[in-house]
Every structure is written in structure tokens, then in C-alpha cells.
């Protein structure tokens, strides 16, 4: 695991996406290239009454500007305060943290399973793969949300050239239903191919993706969430039970785990 740095940095750019979703670009930061898809940062706003940092997946990096992007949804105390940040404001971040995704073989077909605020790391993974010369047509990006407003950065995703499969529960964008349904169809249809799963999203989605992986013997990785007091592996607060017994720390052994590795 690489070293992590704890430092003040600035809001370079803030953008309201849709609904309660925001993008924040933070920098300047040293060694931005050490940030890999799956890594997260641990963020703190100064002088707030929220004592602990919050974890945010890195959504992309801008090496020329020594900056990184996170995408967040306003759901509680910290994110509400983050939504009032302005360009030039100071935040403190600890980065990069966690274990990153393992890239697929170029011969494999990747199934991205994204939901809600689980979208950012998979977008990073996808854009990273494009830079590494992967064929966009080997990536099927399934993106689920309750409604159209939950499906972020559509044009950005499309620009990568990957095969985009939006799914919404209310049918307001893309196919109607849960994202796992078309994925199972896809898996059945492409049984012969070497498939690989990458999932990040709400608990139910992760469970379903994990089950699909186990059921159809598709290797892959899941990125988990857990309340993280420390983010660096010292408090033992963020653990998840392992199928092999015992616990693993989501912040240190994860957040990226292999399909079948953890009890969801």
C-alpha cells in the first residue's frame, strides 16, 4: 500500500450536477498519479461540528492541474455542509486511501454495475481503462437509479464510447426496473465470453451483483461502503465479515473486495 498524505487543499471548481448531486474538484495536490480507480479520500471541512471525516471515492484525476474530482450526494450532515463550499474554500483531505480495482485482461468483457454514489469510482475506472487503450466496446456500463435524475454524467460516459445501459426504477430514463435484471440477461446471453464484474452502489445492488458473480462463476470486484472513523485501518470500526471467517477492514483490505470474498 502506498503512503497517504494528510493536507489542506482548495476547492478549484464546484458544480451542481442533478438533483442533490455535486462535483468538487480539489487541488493542488502532490502525487496525484498515485490515485487509482477504487481509491478514496477522507475529507474534512474546517471548523465544522461534524467531527469525523467522510470517505469519497475518487471520480477522476487531472494530473496537469494536480487535482482530483469527487462526486457526492447531499444526504446528511457533512454533505449538506459540502454543498455550501465555494471555489477557493479550504478543505483537508487524506489521500489516497484503500485498495484500488484490479484492471481486467484486455481479452475480457467488463460489466460495470453502478448505482447512486457508487457511480464515481466506476466512471474513474472506465476513463482510466480508456487511457490505457482498452477497447470501449468491451465495457458494458450498467447504471441504475430510482429516476432519471439519479443518472449522472451521461454525455461524459457516452464520450468514452462504452456501451451504456441506463436503468431506472420508474422508467424515466433508459430501461425500467432494477439494474440487476438486464445484467442477468446480458450474462446469460454472453455466457461464452470471458466476463468480469465491477460493482459499486447500494447494499442491495452489491448483494445482487455478488450473487450473480457467484452463480455464473464470473470473477470481479465490489467496492463497499461502511462508516469509517479513521479511514486508514487503525480503529477497526469499518469491518465487514469475510466468507472465510473473521472480519476485514473496508478501509484497508477494501473498499474493493473480490466477488464472494465478503458476507453481504
Amino acid at each position, binding site marked *: *500500500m*502506498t*503512503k*497517504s*498524505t*494528510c493536507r489542506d487543499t482548495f476547492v478549484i471548481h464546484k458544480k451542481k450536477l442533478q438533483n442533490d448531486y455535486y462535483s468538487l474538484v480539489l487541488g493542488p495536490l502532490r502525487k496525484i498519479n498515485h490515485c487509482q480507480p477504487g481509491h478514496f479520500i477522507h475529507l*474534512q471541512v474546517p471548523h465544522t*461540528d*461534524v*467531527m*469525523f*471525516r467522510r470517505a469519497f471515492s475518487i471520480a477522476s484525476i487531472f494530473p496537469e492541474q494536480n487535482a482530483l474530482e469527487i462526486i457526492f450526494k447531499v444526504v446528511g450532515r457533512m454533505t449538506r455542509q459540502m454543498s455550501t463550499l465555494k471555489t477557493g474554500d479550504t478543505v*483537508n483531505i*487524506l489521500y489516497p486511501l484503500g485498495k484500488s480495482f484490479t484492471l481486467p485482461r484486455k481479452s475480457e468483457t467488463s460489466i460495470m454495475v453502478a448505482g447512486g454514489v457508487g457511480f464515481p469510482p466506476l466512471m474513474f475506472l472506465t476513463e482510466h481503462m480508456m487511457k490505457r487503450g482498452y477497447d470501449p466496446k468491451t465495457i458494458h456500463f450498467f447504471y441504475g437509479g430510482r429516476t432519471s435524475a439519479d443518472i449522472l454524467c451521461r454525455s461524459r460516459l457516452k464520450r468514452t464510447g462504452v456501451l451504456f445501459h441506463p436503468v431506472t426504477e420508474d422508467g424515466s430514463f433508459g430501461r425500467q426496473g432494477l439494474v440487476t435484471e438486464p445484467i442477468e440477461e446480458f450474462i446469460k446471453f454472453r455466457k461464452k465470453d470471458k466476463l468480469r464484474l465491477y460493482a459499486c452502489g447500494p447494499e442491495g445492488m452489491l448483494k445482487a451483483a455478488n450473487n450473480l458473480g457467484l452463480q455464473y462463476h464470473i470473477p470481479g470486484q465490489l467496492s463497499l461502503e*461502511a*462508516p469509517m*472513523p*479513521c*479511514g*486508514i*485501518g*487503525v*480503529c*477497526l*470500526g*469499518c*469491518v*465487514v*465479515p469475510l466468507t472465510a471467517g*473473521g*472480519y476485514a477492514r473496508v478501509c*484497508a483490505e477494501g473498499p474493493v473486495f473480490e466477488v464472494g470474498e465478503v458476507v453481504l
Partner: protein
Amino acid sequence: MTPDLKVTIAGVEFANPIMTASGCCGYGEELHRVFPLKTLGALVTKSITLHPRSGHPVPRTAETASGMLNAIGLANVGVDAFIKDKLPFLEDKQTRVIVNVAGSKIQEYVDVCARLEDCPPVDMVELNISCPNVDEGGMEFGSNAALTEKTIASVKKVFTKPLIAKLSPNVTDIVEIARAAEQGGAEVLSLINSVVGAAIDINTWQPKLTNNKGGLTGPAIKPIALAKVDAVYNACTVPIIGIGGITCAADVVEFMLCGATAVQVGTALFIEPDVPVKIVKDLKTYLKQKGLASVANLRGKVRKY
């Protein structure tokens, strides 16, 4: 003139009085990725038990106002794996190593300490007789004077390096327990461990910890810790390590003025993992500003009304 941060406790010299508290710094490996451990006076390991423990189910922690509750359940690798897999890493890190030991029976404390007796990198042992998170009686030791004395005296028979007794704040009279620990042979007292607390999720109506209750730590408890350190300092003669809610050099100064010779930083590491670096730097600056040659000049110097 650079102020002298060195402190000597029970014959052992520490580069500075800043230690990391048990359970808040693992076995040192993770923190070393954020700052060099030699910054620290000492690292205090997570509580080590005779057998490995996986700890309580999640949720194990909950955020509270300026603090947190935890009921990790003494998750640790067990003394054998600790000595084999974890201790070697600490050997060349140029910091003192204090191993925190927990148990549910006196014999367990004795057995663990006996194994640590022959490990050269171990400078001291801190007996956690005050952990509120084990049913088998972890806290009982620390809230009963006779049991405290007996536990420490028993360990003293097998462990010859300095022994620290870590005291619980959850008692009517901490001085009584401190005296018993001294009586039992503890060369050092450390205080406080976490304060018993609870929190309930108003949506699910379940406790926020699977253990139902847990230990409150962080800045919220600093005033409680200071009052306890003050009380013990005025009643006992052995050196004191102050613990509880420390986040900055100013907090360290408060504890030393109340009588602490050194301090441990716990929850603050979760908020700012490299905070010891800043504390050491700011402590030097403070001493310079006050024209003090040594950090030892602060000890017990509170000017009571």
C-alpha cells in the same frame, strides 16, 4: 535554545511525552504510512489478549457530539501472532513500544505478560484493567480496588519491566483504585480509558452499537480526564500518563499542568492521523514562548485557586 522534550518514566527515557493510545494506532504499521513513528515518544499497541479475538459485530462505532462511542470488542491477533507478526515491524522504528494487555481472568493477564517478558522491543506493558467492552468482566478489575491490586501484583511476578495500570473513569473514587494499583506494584498509572455511554438510532430504535453500549472518547471527555488526572496526581507518587480527548499541544499542556508526565493521543488520530507531528512541533513552540527549558517544567504546575 530548543526546549527539551525528553521525559523519563520509571527509568525509561522517551524522546518526547507524546504517545498514541491503545486501540487507536493498531500495531503501528498503518500510522507509519502517514508519518514516521520515530516522531512519537511511544506507540501503545491495541490491547493484546491470550487468544486472537475477532471482536463484536458491526456497527462498532458511532459518532457523538465531539466524540465517539466504540465497542470494538478487543479485536486483536492474540499474543503469539503479535510477537511473531507484528512486533518485528516495530523493532527499528526508533520509538518506544508499550504493549497494552487485556484479559478476562487474572491468569490471562499473567500468561500474556509472561510471553512479553522475553521480547526485547517491548519497553513497558500497560494493563488494560478498564475496558468497558467485554462481558467477562474487563471493567470489573478496574472498578474494584482489591482486584486491581491483585491483578497487578500477579503480573509483577512474571514481568520485570515497568508496568502501567490503565484506569477506568467509571468509578466513584478513582483515587482508591489508583492507590490499589500503586500498592500492587504498578510503576506508572495511565488514565483515562473510555467512559461508558450509549446512543440509540431513532429510526430503527436499535442501539447504535451491537454491544448496546460502548466507550465514549474524544474531545468530549477531556474535562473528565483532566479532573481525574488532577485527583490521582494529588494522591499518588508514581508518574501519570494522561489520556482523554487530546487533539493539540494546548491539551497536552493542560494535562501536564495537572500532573501528567506524558500523554496518549487516541481518537484524534482518526480525525488527523498525523496530529502527533503537529503536537510535538507546537509543544516546542509553546515551551519556547514560555521560556521553559524542559517539558518537565510543566508537570503539576497548575496554580489552583
